[in-house]
């Protein structure tokens, strides 16, 4: 018993010391990104691609919350992205004083995310009653409605799009938001609400009967998910400096879906991997011309056949898991042995 306990302790200490590595690494990379930004150390093209990867990670993670963790099938995610993009852009261009735009940028992005989050409720409510393919239609129609509404608002430029944003999305900002989204989704998933989300995926009725207030959980999940999609939209808009409704059509939603299922459902690591692989592969294969668009779907189909849940489906990179959860049973045993 003694030996056993000390080994667990050792394992835990080991894990905890090494655990500092990940946040340290992230902080370091964040600092690095600031330096890169300041001294223009990285090729702007590489920077641009990294920022796309970052934005796509946020999108993928946020959709994974609904489709992967909660097991629904939402297909209109680009609609939330559009809302975030337009709200943030409208703020920096039309509302905030021009010379302050750069300072108020984070506020604009957050506002975009919040509006998207509130609109997320529109989709959360039907999800109380419908599931599966019918909810898919609700989200699909929602995406199309968002596009159509923006097309009809002249103040937003309608189909001509909206421009005038400065290039405020920088490597540090994108990186910062990636960290926030990973952190928020991880902390939510490894909490009571996250367990509620998972239990809805596993068995909604049983979940309800185990006292999980499924409606609350759904509202929370849809709000958080659309909030981050909105954040991604704000970053996207201030990276491209131009947005139009078409940039957020069903094809964009499909792209996000593909990244989620490619990387793997119900996994933060999967989302990071899926978004990175997809974005980078698309860039790297650019010289293939049209054939890259033939090749990519083939990769997707083959992956689905051989790994139906995606690369990291339902598995997690161990350092993303809180110690409390990962070692729950061992720590408990250790405590019992101690007392």
């Amino acid at each position: 018993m003694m030996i056993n306990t000390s080994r667990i302790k050792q394992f835990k200490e080991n894990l905890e010391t090494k655990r500092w590595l990940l946040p340290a690494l992230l902080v370091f990379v964040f600092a690095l990104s600031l330096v890169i930004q300041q001294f223009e150390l990285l090729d702007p093209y590489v920077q641009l691609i990294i920022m796309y990867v970052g934005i796509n990670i946020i999108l993928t993670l946020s959709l994974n919350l609904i489709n992967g963790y909660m097991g629904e099938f939402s297909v209109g995610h680009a609609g939330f992205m559009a809302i975030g993009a337009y709200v943030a852009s409208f703020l920096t261009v039309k509302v905030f004083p021009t010379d302050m735009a750069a300072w108020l940028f984070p506020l604009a992005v957050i506002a975009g995310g919040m509006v998207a989050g509130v609109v997320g409720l529109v989709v959360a409510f039907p999800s109380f009653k419908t599931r599966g393919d019918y909810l898919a239609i609700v989200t699909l129609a929602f995406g199309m409605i968002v596009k159509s509404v923006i097309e009809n608002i002249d103040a937003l430029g309608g189909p001509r799009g909206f421009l005038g944003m400065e290039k405020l999305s920088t490597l540090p900002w994108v990186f910062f938001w990636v960290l926030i989204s990973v952190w928020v989704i991880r902390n939510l998933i490894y909490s009571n609400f996250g367990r509620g989300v998972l239990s809805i995926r596993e068995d909604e009725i049983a979940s309800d009967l185990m006292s999980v207030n499924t409606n609350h959980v759904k509202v929370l999940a849809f709000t958080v998910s659309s909030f981050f999609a909105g954040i991604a939209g704000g970053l996207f808009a201030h990276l491209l400096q131009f947005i139009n409704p078409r940039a957020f059509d069903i094809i964009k939603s499909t792209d996000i879906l593909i990244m989620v299922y490619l990387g793997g459902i119900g996994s933060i690591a999967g989302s990071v991997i899926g978004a990175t692989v997809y974005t980078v592969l698309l860039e790297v294969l650019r010289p293939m011309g049209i054939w890259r668009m033939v090749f990519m779907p083939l990769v997707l189909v083959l992956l689905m056949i051989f790994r139906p849940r995606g690369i990291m489906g339902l598995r997690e990179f161990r350092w993303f898991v809180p110690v409390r959860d990962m070692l729950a049973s061992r720590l408990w045993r250790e405590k019992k042995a101690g007392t």
Partner: protein
Amino acid sequence: SEKGNTVRIGVNAEMTGDMPAVGESCKKAAEMAVKEINDAGGIDVAGQKYKVELFVEDNAGKPDQSASAAQKLITQQKVHAIVGPNATRYALPASEIAESSKVVMITPWSTNPKTTLDAKTNAPKKYVFRACFIDPFQGRVVAKFALETLKAKKAAVLYDVASEYNKGIAEIFKDTFEQSGGKVVAFETYTTNDKDFSGQLTKIKKAQPDMMFLPNYYSEIPLQIQQAKRLGINVPFVGSDSWGSQELHKLCGNDCEGYYFSTHYAADAATPVATKFIEGFKAKYGTLPDDVAALTYDSFGLLFQALKSAAKLDRDAIRDALAKIPKYEGVTGNMQFKEGSGDPTKSAVIVQIKGGKFVYFATANP
């Protein structure tokens, strides 16, 4: 920063996505222009001969990919200048990158005024040029043509509400037409990729217009005209430069016979430059060039002419030479950049579709 002893020119084209035919034409014309100049021994820049090297990137008909294609051309391929993208929605994000990277970008076909303007200040961008005229000009040309030549009093418009080009030009047409005494009796919309327009056309028929303006892409025109005729709308149909693809004849057959559109050039009233291009294109690809091809070719022509007069082979020198081009004789007519602007002064032509050809009808000067 630019490397080697070649002139490196990038093309950012819509090879996949929603308008692959545009990208295809653009690429063909670019390859032809480059081959011609290399076959002629290359290009003289500041007293030295250079071969031209071409880099084509697909922007997949997505704004983000358009930006990354531009960025890749600039920093990875280290091009001296970029031609493309063609559609405004892809040209805009790419133009921001070109402008901030100080690399010349010439869009062959983006007719939206905003492409060459700084969105904040509305001042012209320094590095962004185009080879075509702009929508307001074209909208006015068509409106005037409808009022004066067709003597139309009541016009109907059907346009794609989800597409910036169509909507922009439709609105300018409406304004001009109504300011000049006409009346737009129906102003109907559809959404990209629609193929059925019967609802809108039935409504238009009820409004009894004298003419109908269709500022839409050539691939949609045949369907719109056929369906209109089937419903018994027998008025002249008028279009804009987006009609100007040779494919239109194949797609439309007899249905478009006799109608008009404004465009960049007319093959039959062609100058020797144009004739040479048309013949060359036909010989190389077996089809007649459309105006994306002509404008792409002209974009290259503009670049080549600028290169010849550039002080040295360098991005800024190219931009300065381009801005100061005295007069360029292109396939799509003579052009010159307005003082401090990336928009050329050039005329439009009205062509009529006759016997499966685009026939010169009139010229409209700015």
